[in-house]
């Protein structure tokens, strides 16, 4: 096995070196007892010969013996696999570097090569017989480069949407819908096969009781249309089965049936959000109903008083509403 590996390492050496010394190196390997040391030595030799030594065959000393220059032709030489691999590596690295440069728009500066207007910003001056100062009789009109829309705040905050919208164009395309199961699984950070409200983007306040936290999670999963569509059994968790069925579930939100989901189709109804928050605030026993036992009278009075003030021409700020609703 080690001999085969040694022979393979020798075969990877440049052809000229291998042809000259390969047999001798193998002879030493056969004789030596320190096979592993020689394997390491061969690997180092391979690196040295491939990376550090010139592969150009030496010129024959008889070539210029009669004083007449003799040119060496490399045409019969076939590039080695190692040389081709190195070439491919260099080409890929160059392409990657160029791509990075383009994507960072380093080359966006306006470079004009040749212009009859003398200016230090022009790289090459050009001489023209045209009348000085006259514009060329050509007009080029270009449409403005379409600016990329910023990622919607809702798409950014709602983790489910941010992983679904892979190209960040604020639209869940048909292809992105198709890829929804795989995209959703990336959110399963604890790998338990379920997506919790927190994994979907909920940030829970730390001072909530377990009961309040549970109700908040359920409310979060219910008020956001995307989560409500995914959580088919309304248990507050998106299971593996529900993730597998995600594409079909999400298509139920496609109101105009165009095969994709726009922001308008996935945004939650503000009234639902408000009502849900009010329930979380006022339904103290969490039975889904506001009853006399919840003693909301003072809150309702303060809240209605604030709204009445606005109705009569006064102003109500968010702080006023917070004060009105605080227990």
């Amino acid at each position, binding site marked *: 096995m080690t001999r085969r590996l040694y022979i393979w390492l020798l075969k990877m050496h440049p052809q000229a070196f291998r042809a000259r010394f390969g047999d*001798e190196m193998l002879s030493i390997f056969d004789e030596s007892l320190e096979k592993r040391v020689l394997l390491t030595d061969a690997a180092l030799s391979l690196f040295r010969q491939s990376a550090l030594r010139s592969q150009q065959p030496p010129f024959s000393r008889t070539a210029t013996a009669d004083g007449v220059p003799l040119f060496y032709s490399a045409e019969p030489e076939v590039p080695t696999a190692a040389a081709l691999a190195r070439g491919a590596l260099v080409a890929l690295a160059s392409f990657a570097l160029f791509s990075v440069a383009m994507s960072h728009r380093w080359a966006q500066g306006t470079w004009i090569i040749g212009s009859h207007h003398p200016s230090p910003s022009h790289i090459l001056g050009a001489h023209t017989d045209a009348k000085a100062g006259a514009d060329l009789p050509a007009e080029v009109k270009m449409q403005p480069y379409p600016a990329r829309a910023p990622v919607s705040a809702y798409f950014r905050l709602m983790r489910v949407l941010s992983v679904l919208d892979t190209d960040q164009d604020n639209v869940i395309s048909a292809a992105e819908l198709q890829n929804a199961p795989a995209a959703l699984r990336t959110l399963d950070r604890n790998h338990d096969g379920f997506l919790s409200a927190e994994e979907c983007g909920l940030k829970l306040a730390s001072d909530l009781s377990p009961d309040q936290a549970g109700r908040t999670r359920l409310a979060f999963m219910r008020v956001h249309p995307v989560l409500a569509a995914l959580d088919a059994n309304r248990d507050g968790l998106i299971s593996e089965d529900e993730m597998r069925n995600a594409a079909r579930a999400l298509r139920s939100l496609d109101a105009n049936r165009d095969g994709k989901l726009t922001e308008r189709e996935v945004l939650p109804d503000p009234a639902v959000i408000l009502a849900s928050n009010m329930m979380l605030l006022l339904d103290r026993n969490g039975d889904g109903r506001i009853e006399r036992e919840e003693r909301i009278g003072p809150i309702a009075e303060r809240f209605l008083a604030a709204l009445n003030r606005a109705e009569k021409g006064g102003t109500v700020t968010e702080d006023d509403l917070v004060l009105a609703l605080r227990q």
Partner: protein
Amino acid sequence: MNEFLPLSPATLHILLALAGEDLHGYGIMQEVTRQSEGAYKLGPGTLYDNLQRLMAQDLVQESSHKAPPGDDPRRRYYRLTAAGRKVLSSEISRLEGVVRLARLHLRRSS
């Protein structure tokens, strides 16, 4: 000859090994180990990389020495050229100068 100096440890040991007699690659490796009392071991990769360069510089050449019967026919023998011997002599002289200077400095400091 000075353009070859100073010699790397591997080159010095190879030239020293070949100064006594023509040797094949494995023989050079063994001779280098013997000369350095086991402190310096050459691998075949390092050996033939140096031999390739030394042959291109005409300091070492392949010998016409034939492997004795029963010896591995893949072995080739190498010998020091006259130029190689001169380079080795120059390096030894240089090292002698270094040793002399080192002794002088050590004597002064003690």
